[in-house]
């Protein structure tokens, strides 16, 4: 307890005891000069009522203050589960599944990076599974002939743009054409790879 607190506490306690004492010993009451003060502000009842109102106001203020600042307690660690780390491909999922804000869309290059990543995987997979040369594979990707899936093809191809049906499907699913295309492309590439294990 700080010094100020102790001082105030003692003062308050003393005053309290004096007050209680006056209740039981009216003669003592005469010694305390409260009467004059009370007269000057319009009678004892006003005095009391004012305090009552003040007290209620303080009660409300205190409860609100409690709500605002809250309790300070420690937060122990959670040892029951295995320490969590992301899964491989989490960044891709976060970007593709959760969508992206306006600022990222306008100023960021995550879109391009994601496309490049999928394209690189598609390139290598095509070379390995279909035995194409690098140029043939690149050509197949640019023309969109590497897969039957239209959304996947248009995601990686600069020549093929997403058609109306792909856009509608994307809207139906509540995601952007980019997200839809990225997901489909990832699925198609892994399907290509799947045959060769």
């Amino acid at each position: 307890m700080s010094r100020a607190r102790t001082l105030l506490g003692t003062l308050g306690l003393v005053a309290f005891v004096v007050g209680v004492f006056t209740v039981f010993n009216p003669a003592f009451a005469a010694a305390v000069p409260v009467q004059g003060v009370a007269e000057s502000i319009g009678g004892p009842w006003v005095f009391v009522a004012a305090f009552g109102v003040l007290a209620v106001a303080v009660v409300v203020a205190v409860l609100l203050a409690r709500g605002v600042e809250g309790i300070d307690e420690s937060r122990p660690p959670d040892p029951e589960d295995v320490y969590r780390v992301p899964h491989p491909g989490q960044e891709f999922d976060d970007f593709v599944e959760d969508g992206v804000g306006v600022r990222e869309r306008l100023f960021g290059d995550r879109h391009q990076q994601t496309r490049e990543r999928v394209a690189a995987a598609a390139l290598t997979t095509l070379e390995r599974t279909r035995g194409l040369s690098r140029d043939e594979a690149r050509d197949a990707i640019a023309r969109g002939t590497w897969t039957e899936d239209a959304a996947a093809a248009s995601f990686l191809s600069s020549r093929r743009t997403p058609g109306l049906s792909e856009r509608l499907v994307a809207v139906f699913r509540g995601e952007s054409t980019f997200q839809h295309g990225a997901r489909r492309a990832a699925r198609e590439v892994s399907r290509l790879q799947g045959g060769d294990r």
Partner: protein
Amino acid sequence: MTTTRKTRRWRGVIAVALFAGAAGLLFKRPSVLLLSVVGVAYAAYPQLPTEPTVSLDLERRLSDEDPSDGDEVTVRVTVRNTGTGILPDLRLVDGVPPMLSVTGGTPRHAATLRPGESTSFSYTVTATQGTHRFEPATVIARDIAGAAEVETEVAAETTIECVAEVPEVPLRDQTSQLVGRIVTDQGGSGVEFHRTREYERGDDMSRIDWRRFARTGDLTTTEYREERAASVVLCLDVRASAYRSPGEGEPHAVAHSLAAAEQLLSSLAETTDSVGLASLGGSEACWLPPGTGRDQVTRARKLLATHPSLSPYPPDEPAAADHSSALTDLRRRLGNETQVVLFSPLLDAFAVEAAMQLEATDHATTVVSPDVTSPETPGGRLATTERANRITTLRESGIRTVDWDPSEPLGTALIHAQERWSR
């Protein structure tokens, strides 16, 4: 690290006294005014200076210090108050090793401890491959009113070792001059038959094939394959990108790599192969030059358990940190005839580059890659494809790669890999 705080949970209880006082005064009821005395008493209660001093002794007893993979281990924790004051409100959260999960009971407990008194509780964990070290238990002590709180830690060195033996370590043909287990293609005086050649003057008499001489009259010398010892460095990929797991509740690739390295260490220790340890990535590079003997193995085990880079927690490095200088340092440290076994989940291009650089600079490299991909999400499928492509790239470059599914023992994966390599 100890933190003391005031919980402020009794904040505003003086409002009780004020409310009663106000009502008592407004309605002129002395009895209600006396109710405010109760309020004042409760307002003073949390101000009592009774902050607890925490002095505890923690002991853990394991039902099995050496379990097999999948076994349940019961941990019994006993805490004793070694201080002079009573601890009216003691809360404990035990430091379960990060790669283990609690499968029965709870590692949390609360008790009131008088000086000298102790309390116990138990819980069960399921063991997985590797060495698991318990962390310090978190202790939160409050005073009788709950107004002051002391948060601290109490530790007890406890370890669960779950290490299986690997039947045979797949070492390649690069060897150093010590005699050991590797069978080379150089003919010499080892144990396995290699070929017969014409006798040359000076050849050892004990190696002359006398039976043939008796039969045909030709003097021939038998040559055996030379056995030479290998110098191996177990190199662990502990960059931030290697800390990935297939899903919740599963250990990450670095945990699997550490467990695998421990297993290989045990097997190599039984031969005269000299073994060393290195890390790729991490805040501080780990390096133990290859050596032989029990002391070397002990040193290596200690590093695997305690080195800050070989930790179950990922390092704080930025996502695009550059490790090429670390790789150059590693290459410099490796001697001329040292093989490398690289443990890496192969989740990015740098891992492949590292393996290829090491192989190109005359360090025969074998890659042991725990598969932590999971094809459940689009990103997961992409990562699986990329990893498969990387494995193919490594194999096409002549680097032996073990694609290890951690759900099966490493020994099994190595045996299958050996079969494939000897075809």
